[in-house]
């Protein structure tokens, strides 16, 4: 009897230990295999595209406005970061007032102040300031097209001025990460040295790095947002640019998480018990068109190209790792609206080409062999070409390396009038980058992303009204109208939206994939 009691007591004790383990703070080391060819820089806004911001930028640093990545069911929107609130100056619609969060400390122990915001804006924007960093200027300036200056109102308030009324400024400032002036001064503005000892206010602290190989972060246990204190003991970032090696690294247990597994590896990963997570996010894989010269100046030809595409074949080729694209933004976007959707209709495409008198309709498209967000550009472009050719187009694909295509994109249609379209995938994270920059005359390349110099008086009016509308609900109506107008004009050849695949070891728990280019790693834990 005693033995039985003893056994029962031991079992109960064991169960209690196990239950205790279940409720205790999760832990483990999370090792991420990135697609980047190198470690992102740590001096503020990182390089290596969105992956740099995702894993290094928003881990080490905060911006005044952050992205709410906690809910995967709806597209991510902005939330308070180092600023607790913001509003437009009632007497000046070109002046945004931001209230700063109090009691925040940099990783080096210095307090976060309004002066630090001023210093950071000089760091990224004032060529004459000793702290000016041209690389950071390049990385942040694209988000600050309307920025005109900043002033300190008091210790907890700053005001940003814009060149024109810009209701979307809070979105734009969310991409500007703030670094510690204390640490910068400590290393005498030596950015090489700073990169080895970065200091931010983010949820992770930099621990160590081996150049080109590995970067290791540890939780910032004093993070101002207690809910986002990381649940892992350590975050390790490893660049593994080769897709098959990334897959092998996950299968062999060397990493716990890989970005962008190749579509043909999904079956193998699933059979090994890996978690494949996907979710549509603000990305499009489309063609930007020449609106100055050539067949695409005619809306009927643009529509014909859209009707010609059997997007289901494209997603099938990608093993289902894409969503058919019928508008600039994915349907889950709040301002998607009810746009004209150019569903596959080859007869309609042929009729439109005939009506436009473009048979055969010869077009030349610049494409890349690889590149950030470009998915699988060569086979995808070949498939699109075959579909366009089938209805009467005669497509010439001019393949070049990513860098050359970027240069062509930045320089715009004026310098490259012989191209009828370019194939550059786009990030659509915020309303300005999602819609406005593609069709606004204010962003005609080389001043911005409107490569083909699209212009339309009605759309121009809607953009002006959107930028001047500070009521969020009313602005949403205008953005919806803009998206519908863009589809009406068939401003792009829409193909697919990426669904952001990543593969996780079964040991990884707690990850919520946000509908965003950025992801929150803080709730993730790794079991032994």
């Amino acid at each position, binding site marked *: 009897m005693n033995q039985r009691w003893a056994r029962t007591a031991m079992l109960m004790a064991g169960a209690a230990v196990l239950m205790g383990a279940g409720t205790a703070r999760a832990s483990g*080391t999370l*090792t991420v*295999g990135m697609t980047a*060819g*190198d470690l992102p*820089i740590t*001096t503020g806004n990182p*390089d290596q*595209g969105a992956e740099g911001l995702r894993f290094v930028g928003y881990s080490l640093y905060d911006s005044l406005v952050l992205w709410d990545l906690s809910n995967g069911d709806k597209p991510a929107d902005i939330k308070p970061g180092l600023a607790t609130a913001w509003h437009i100056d009632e007497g000046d619609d070109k002046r945004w007032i931001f209230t700063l969060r109090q009691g925040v400390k940099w990783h080096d122990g210095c307090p976060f102040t309004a002066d630090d915001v001023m210093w950071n804006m000089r760091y990224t924007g004032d*060529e004459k300031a000793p702290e000016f960093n*041209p*690389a950071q*200027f*390049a*990385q942040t*300036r*694209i988000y600050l*097209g309307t920025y005109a200056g900043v002033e300190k109102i008091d210790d907890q308030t700053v005001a940003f001025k814009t060149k024109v009324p810009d209701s979307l400024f809070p979105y734009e400032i969310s991409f500007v990460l703030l670094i510690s002036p204390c640490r910068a001064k400590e290393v005498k503005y030596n*950015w*090489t040295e700073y*990169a080895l000892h970065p200091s931010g206010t983010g949820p992770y602290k930099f621990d*160590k790095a*081996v*150049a*080109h*190989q*590995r970067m*290791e972060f540890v939780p910032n246990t004093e993070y101002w947002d207690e809910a986002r204190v990381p649940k892992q003991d*350590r975050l*390790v970032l*490893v*660049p*593994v*640019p*080769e897709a*098959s*090696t990334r897959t*092998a*690294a996950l*299968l*062999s*247990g*060397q990493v716990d998480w890989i970005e962008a597994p190749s579509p043909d590896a999904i079956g193998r990963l699933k059979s090994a018990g890996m978690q494949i997570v996907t979710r549509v996010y603000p990305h499009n894989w489309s063609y930007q068109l020449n609106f100055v010269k050539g067949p695409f100046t005619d809306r009927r030809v643009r529509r014909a190209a859209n009707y010609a595409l059997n997007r289901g074949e494209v997603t099938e080729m990608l093993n289902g790792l894409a969503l058919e694209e019928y508008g600039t933004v994915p349907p889950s976007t709040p301002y998607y609206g009810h746009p004209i959707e150019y569903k596959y209709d080859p007869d309609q495409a042929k009729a439109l080409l005939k009506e436009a008198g473009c048979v055969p309709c010869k077009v030349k498209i610049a494409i890349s062999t690889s590149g*950030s967000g470009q998915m699988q550009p060569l086979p995808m472009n070949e498939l699109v070409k075959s579909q366009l050719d089938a209805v009467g187009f005669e497509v010439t694909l001019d393949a*070049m*390396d*990513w*860098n*050359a295509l*970027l*240069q062509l*994109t*930045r*320089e715009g249609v004026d310098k490259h009038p012989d191209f009828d379209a370019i194939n*550059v995938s786009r990030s659509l994270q915020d309303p300005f980058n999602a819609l406005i*920059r593609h069709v606004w005359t204010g962003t005609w390349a*080389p*001043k*911005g*992303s409107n490569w083909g110099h699209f212009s339309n008086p009605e759309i121009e009016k809607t953009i002006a009204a959107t930028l001047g509308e500070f009521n969020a609900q009313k602005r949403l109506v205008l953005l919806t109208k803009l998206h519908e107008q863009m589809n009406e004009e068939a401003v792009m050849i829409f193909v697919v939206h990426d669904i952001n695949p990543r593969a996780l070891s079964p040991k990884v728990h707690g990850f919520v994939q946000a509908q965003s280019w950025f992801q929150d790693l803080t709730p993730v834990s790794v079991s032994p």
Partner: protein
Amino acid sequence: MIFYILRRILYAIPIAFGVSVVCFSLVYIAPGDPLQTVMPPDATAETIAIVKHAYGFDKPLPMQFVIWLGRVVTGDFGLSIATRRPVFLEVTDALANTALLALFAAPIAFFTGYAMGVIAGCFPGRWVDRLVTGAAVMGVSLPNYWLGIVLVIIFAVQFMLLPATGMGPNGSTGFRIFEWSSARFLVLPVITLAMIPIGILARTTRAAVAEVRNQDFVQTLRAKGLSEWAVTRHVLKNSLPQVMAVMGLQFGYLIGGSILVETVFTWPGSGFLLSKAIINRDVPVLQGTILTLSLVFVATNLVVDLLQSLIDPRIRRG
């Protein structure tokens, strides 16, 4: 001999200058922007102009070349645009990592290839010759990035014996050759890298040995009654200069780093550095790496020439 060495070193100076002109100019021929790595895709012309000015890329090319050359002769290769680390450090770190691979791959390749070639050359036309020649052709023909991936699938994924990627375990701050936790990262890239030189060496050695065995002096040695072992020793010694020339070239290639192998294994060597610099148009790194690798080739050839003349007294150098 000292004069010969000095003369060869003096020859190397104009070669190095020529190489510096070529490598500086070459990187500007390719389309793309040297500031691509720090510039987001949507950077405006105004932003690009300001950043170009800040980095000195707005100056005329000849002036940039003079400034660059002036720095290079003092050992300052500038800063990497991508990482802001000194290029000299980037290049020497990468070269050291590649040399680590080469130091293991070269002896494996040279001994294996040489042994295979000698066996095949001593038994021309026999089954062993056919076997070795077949294996050598296979070694030369196998794309090493494919071989690397296959080795990873077998040893990292299936048997989980060796790591698939990288150059050290989490938490380590440097590579420790005498610790298995680090050294195990070497195994797969070394084997992959050694495969092609094994094939080339085996074929070269076989041809050299077979050729020397057919020379008259070998008949004479046999007629004088030397044992087959003694004759083989003479054959090997006489075939060595030709083999060494190829070894030197292969060593140069190994030190130069294999872009494909280093990319497959994410090994941070000179090949990987070069490929990243090309993709990012990181001009200072590209120029520094090409120049350094060219000088390594010149130095390797010099060393091989000297060794050849030491081994074979018939090779007289003025």
